[in-house]
């Protein structure tokens, strides 16, 4: 199966975008745990929310690497 460079490039772009799914699963788990902790202990809500936001940004970063690879290809 011979691929010319242009179609190989498009295929590579597509494969790079699939990897963002894992980040979605991770972030959903993280937010779920944070909501559960907020339900157990409602007075720590503000502090937990800030930390959750930082955690979501960190988990998002893997998806952002894939997006940058997509733009570079």
């Amino acid at each position, binding site marked *: 199966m011979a691929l010319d460079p242009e179609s190989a490039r498009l295929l590579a772009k597509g494969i790079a975008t699939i990897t963002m799914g894992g980040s979605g699963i991770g972030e959903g788990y993280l937010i779920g745990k944070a909501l559960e902790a907020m339900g157990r202990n409602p007075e720590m809500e503000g502090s937990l929310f800030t930390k959750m936001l930082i955690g979501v940004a960190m988990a998002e*970063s893997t998806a952002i*690497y894939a997006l*940058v690879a997509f733009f570079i290809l």
Partner: protein
Amino acid sequence: MNFLQVAGDIPSLQPPVLFHIGSWPITSSLMLIWLILLLTIVVVRVLFKILSLRPGIYQNIFEVLYESMLKLVDQITSSRKISEKIFPLIATLFLFIGVSNLITLIPGLTSLTYNGKEIFRSPTTDFNTTFALALAMLILIQVQSIRDWGIFGYIGRFIQIKPLILSFKQGLGAGLTAFINFLIGFLDIVSEIAKVVSLSMRLFGNIFAGEVLTVIIMAGLAYALPAVWMAMGILTGVVQALVFGSLVAAYYTISLNPGKQAAGN
């Protein structure tokens, strides 16, 4: 394009070069960095002229900002002394990155063109800016770590030969644990480089992707839909500035020598 869609060109990875001073190219993001610097100088000059013990509205805003940022850094470093030491750095990072992420919301600022190239472009959409910031932070943290641990202690954090020799005398089990720690010490060197790459790519990727998607959404439907995406862009800009500042504070804190800190150095 028809009435409902607005065509625009997708921003390139490299910012456009406007002119040269000597042999140094001046790009669009550099022009906006200068504008932000000018704005900061003007705001601070006005603020310092009206400082008083009974604050008005203008001073109150800055005091609230100061207190909330100090509390955030306190939560990360869990020591008031370290917070006050690195607070100017973290606050500068937070404000600079926050302003440069949000400044393209001012209407018309990115539409000014010179010879067909845009004059102003947000500096964090340029990988040069984010990489320079991350590299500078890495060098700062390594220098501070050398200062705290001494040069041999610093190398000893990565190549842990001493605990290896000491614990083999205690017994085989402790010796094997120390051997694994020895290998992990080498991995720490790689992780320092990974910190630079991850810090710079996270900031660049978020903001650059936001700009590209704004252009694409405006080519889809130019009424009401871009506003939703731009609101998301505001949230992303502020959160990314927060994350950059907090991560630098966290890396700084874990690179210090806890014994020296506890002794009141």
